[in-house]
């Protein structure tokens, strides 16, 4: 019996078109733009100015407040400007514009391919290194990793969980990374274990990736503390609360973080980035991005430099702009629909999905037939039809009492609704308003 989370979940078609496509590097174009806000928390502060020459791996911006991260240059080139660019929502945000001249690296970076499995640094130094190398959570939330590794007073970490689930349809970047860099990932896991002071780690992988499960199990077998656990294919198995429940049976209490039940969850891509940072002194300046979808002729996985515009990836993968309906950054369940293809790839972009025109339009909205499919599908045990309705009629006290803030915005409710009602749209607005109300109440 494969492990899984207890409540809710849906089964969208997996459509992993690019699962057999090895990771290929893609050259950056002549100009890249590195947004200053690539992680949760405050935007980074630039330490370069217009006209400066930089090498790949040089620091571009530092993180000053507690929750923020460092930014490094992915290329060698000249700083053209620090100006606004149009982000995924069409709003203007600051970024560093770099004119690309080559890919000459900073001398301190170890560029060799040699596998380094000995971990020489101690716990606190590991965390400092991770901070300086700008590593953030690559699962999509982009929480600064060094902050996650600093356990708050009074809490104890017992278990490290590596999230190799990749439950979103179409995406395969984590899958390919596990197949092509398994030993580096295991080493990264060991580094994280040392930083946290834990002796146990579980790598959770969905059962639709048997090759990755076998490969990682083989390499983990030399380390008794590391276990690989296959999981049933069900969305959203990759949500950290669902993953913790499936692997340990523990439920993270409402409003609290995983550390409350002694767990720390890191994405498998983050484990790899930690390996690069600690063993090779290599900052986070590139990541694996899946480019896929029914519109794309060659679904592929690219190793992309941060700041490369999405259009460069789409060209290489052979998209068909005349037929394209939606270009989505991320997966189809939680990703963001882009306004144009000129936005840059950032640390949190795990994939670009292009859907054809017809499939991109939503079905017609019909009245709620009280079928309770949304209640069955919600992995957090909420009642989406009710929360959407009270948010729509602006009764936010009822929404707060209905635990609307527990919603992880996975989209299972809107996915399954036979009447195609925009449940998650209303719930998102409700969450926003309830948060505003709580903030003003606490002032």
């Amino acid at each position: 019996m494969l492990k899984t989370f207890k409540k809710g979940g849906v089964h969208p078609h997996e459509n992993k078109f690019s699962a057999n496509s090895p990771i290929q590097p893609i050259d950056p174009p002549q100009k890249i733009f590195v947004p200053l806000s690539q992680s949760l928390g405050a935007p980074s502060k630039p330490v370069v100015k217009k006209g400066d020459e930089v090498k790949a791996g040089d620091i571009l911006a530092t993180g000053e407040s507690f929750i923020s991260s460092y930014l490094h240059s992915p290329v060698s080139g000249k700083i053209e400007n620090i100006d606004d660019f149009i982000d995924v929502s069409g709003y203007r945000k600051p970024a560093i514009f770099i004119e690309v001249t080559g890919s000459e690296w900073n001398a301190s970076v170890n560029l060799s391919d040699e596998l380094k499995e000995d971990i020489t640094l101690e716990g606190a130094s590991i965390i400092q290194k991770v901070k300086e190398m700008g590593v953030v959570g690559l699962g999509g939330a982009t929480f600064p990793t060094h902050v996650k590794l600093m356990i708050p007073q009074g809490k104890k970490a017992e278990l490290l969980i590596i999230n190799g689930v990749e439950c979103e349809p179409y995406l395969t970047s984590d899958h390919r990374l596990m197949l092509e860099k398994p030993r580096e990932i295991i080493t990264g896991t060991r580094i994280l274990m040392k930083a946290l002071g834990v002796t146990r780690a579980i790598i959770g992988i969905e059962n639709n990736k048997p090759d990755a499960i076998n490969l990682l199990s083989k390499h983990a077998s030399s380390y008794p503390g590391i276990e690989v656990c296959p999981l049933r294919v069900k969305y959203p198995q990759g949500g950290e609360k669902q993953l913790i429940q499936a692997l340990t049976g523990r439920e993270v209490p409402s409003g609290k973080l995983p550390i409350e039940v002694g767990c720390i969850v890191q994405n498998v891509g983050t484990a790899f980035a930690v390996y690069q940072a600690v063993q090779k002194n290599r900052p986070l300046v590139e990541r694996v991005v899946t480019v896929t979808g029914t519109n794309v002729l060659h679904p592929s996985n690219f190793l992309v430099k941060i700041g490369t515009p999405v259009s460069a990836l789409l060209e290489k993968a052979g998209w068909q702009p005349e037929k394209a309906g939606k270009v989505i950054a991320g997966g189809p369940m939680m990703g963001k629909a882009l306004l144009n293809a000129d936005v840059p790839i950032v640390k949190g972009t795990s994939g670009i999905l292009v859907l054809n025109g017809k499939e991109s339009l939503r079905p017609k909205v019909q009245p709620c037939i009280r079928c309770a499919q949304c209640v069955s599908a919600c992995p957090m045990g909420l009642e989406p039809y009710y929360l959407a309705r009270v948010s729509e009629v602006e009764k936010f006290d009822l929404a707060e009492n209905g635990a609307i803030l527990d919603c992880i915005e996975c989209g299972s409710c809107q996915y399954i609704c036979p009447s195609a009602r925009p449940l998650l749209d209303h719930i998102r607005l409700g969450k926003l308003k309830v948060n505003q109300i709580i903030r003003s109440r606490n002032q």
Partner: protein
Amino acid sequence: MNPLIVSGSPHIHGEMTIKSIMWGVVIALLPAWLAGVWFFGIGAVIVTLVSIASCVLFEFLIQKFVLKQEPTVNDGSAVVTGLLLAMNVPSSLPWWQVVIGSLVAIGIVKMAFGGLGKNLFNPALIARVFLLISFPVTMTTWPLPIESRANVFNFDGVTGPTPLGTLKTQLAMGQTVAQIKLPSYTNLLWGNIGGSFGEVSAIALIIGGIYMLYRKIITWHIPVSFILTAFIFSGILCLVNPNRYADPVFHILAGGLLIGAIFMATDLVTSPMTAWGKIIFGIGCGVLTILIRVFGAYPEGVSFAILIMNAFVPLIDRAFKPKRFGEVK
């Protein structure tokens, strides 16, 4: 390049639609419908056609001319109401009474309350009860199953009481249960008995129920709690006094309990939204059904039981919430 489409996530949608649910229910009803036609002949077919046609027509007319909205008869919900109404009345019901029943079901119970998804009570059941009270004679004249296949087109079939009707009248005359000639379990299971043409065949209804569970149109909670409660309650009564109270297996197989538990109580719009709510709903229906059958004036209590519980559903929804992930007490 065409303008890109922008919206919030999720960007894909599951395959379940209102139409697919409605057609799933129709397919699930097919075995019981075919059994009804087999046992009662052409009368069942005519009642079905008249019922479905009037339900669809009334919905179309009311939406287009009274409410001035785009008619939504394509979603199949009126077809399901028509089919369920037909299967809950005798196959010999005059066609014009079927039409009146359809008007009540669609016009009053569904449209007057706001249309699809907004009705408080089960439309087919209210229509059935309305017909029962307005036309008591025709609604309690039960054709018996056709003796030979040659009589399929014969409208002057023999009529007789239903198993529950027999039970009630004979008990009132002072007979004990053992003395009353009730149909065998085999006949009850296959449907070779008198009654509404859709309710007679237990096995066909159960097959339909399993199909709906497989398609995830309904969950197990209501049918199981309804049937189990009725079984236990009637079982207790039977243990106490087997002379006055029939055995629980008879109660489950006879009358409209199976069609009620599997198709009527599980109506999506009028049943509770949470697992515990559904179980309480089923228990209430089971208790009320047996109470009305045993202590009430009517031989059959399923329709009334379900309608009474429908009235409680808003309260049940308020009282029973699903268990939240990580709920902090």
